[in-house]
């Protein structure tokens, strides 16, 4: 199935700069319908109000981390099928394994580039 390029994407990070970087990278690869949240709590509230085609989330945020957001998303019937990519500086094996067990669709280690983001999005959503 073709990827809908106008689908809404939710970017979750407590650093405005990182949200801006991801926004720019998404724009470069053709996705301009981007929403943002500063932590897991705000992100989940937005997800309950609107259906997103993809969530791109940082791990280390307060008060709700990206890992907790992933767990909550997967345990809620209305959000559990939303594709979820973790983009984080947490690079220990235990983090990757924990995210995989929690149901993450892909995992990107910071720092990253547009090529990596595009490749992981294609792996999750299909080629575009």
């Amino acid at each position, binding site marked *: 199935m073709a990827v809908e390029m106008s689908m809404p994407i939710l970017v979750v990070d407590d650093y405005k700069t990182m949200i801006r970087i991801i926004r*720019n990278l998404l724009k470069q690869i053709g996705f301009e319908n981007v929403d943002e949240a500063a932590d897991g709590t705000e992100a989940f509230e937005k997800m309950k109000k609107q259906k997103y085609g993809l969530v791109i989330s940082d*791990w280390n945020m307060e008060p709700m981390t990206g890992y907790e957001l992933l767990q909550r998303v997967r345990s809620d019937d209305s959000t559990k099928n939303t594709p979820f990519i973790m983009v984080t500086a*947490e690079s*220990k094996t235990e983090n*990757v394994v924990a995210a995989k067990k929690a149901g993450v669709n892909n995992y990107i280690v910071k720092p990253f580039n547009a090529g990596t983001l595009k490749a992981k999005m294609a792996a999750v959503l299909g080629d575009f």
Partner: protein
Amino acid sequence: MPAAEVAARVRESLQSIKASDFKDAQVMDVLELAQQLTSTMQLFFGSLDRSIHQEFSYIATYISRTREEISKLRPNDIKEQRIPVAGAELEAVVTDTEKATETIMSEAETILGLDAEADPAAYKERVDAAMMTIIEACSFQDLAGQRVSKVVTSLKHVEKRVTRFAQSMGVHDADADEDEKSEAERKRELHLNGPAIGGPEKKQNEVDNIMDLGQDDIDALFD
């Protein structure tokens, strides 16, 4: 006189009194025994005074030495100068990097939004100006480096003083307080490790390999 010896002499005197036949005793015998007991008790209390005096002297010396060591630790300098200045420097680093990032990203976004073919000459002029602005903004790295060096120097001073104090006073760490314990527990449960020193602990290709593993292979990672 050692306490054990004093106690023995008191015991001997009491046994001597008990063993005496008071009915037939001469007044002088009783007085002699009383004098013997009094002398012994004087020796005992005298030794007690000396012992207490020695203990207090030791405590006073220890307190004096502790005060001297705390003085060398210079806690007021740490509390009022080193730590606040280090905090201010780090905040300035964050502010400087934010400003620089804002400048660089704004210029990059502007360039990306330009139509290069509409007016190539104007486009080149605008790109050249943006590149100069970006190059100038990168000077934050020099300032950030200097600020971080100051913080590192301060931390080394504090580390040196605390280490000297701990070694000199023979201090052993107490358990962390409840707040610290619960914070550490939360970080452990949520795998909040933060960025690794020297780059990611697992590179992207290694992360990809883990993501491709089955459950048995994942379990094997922790065997």
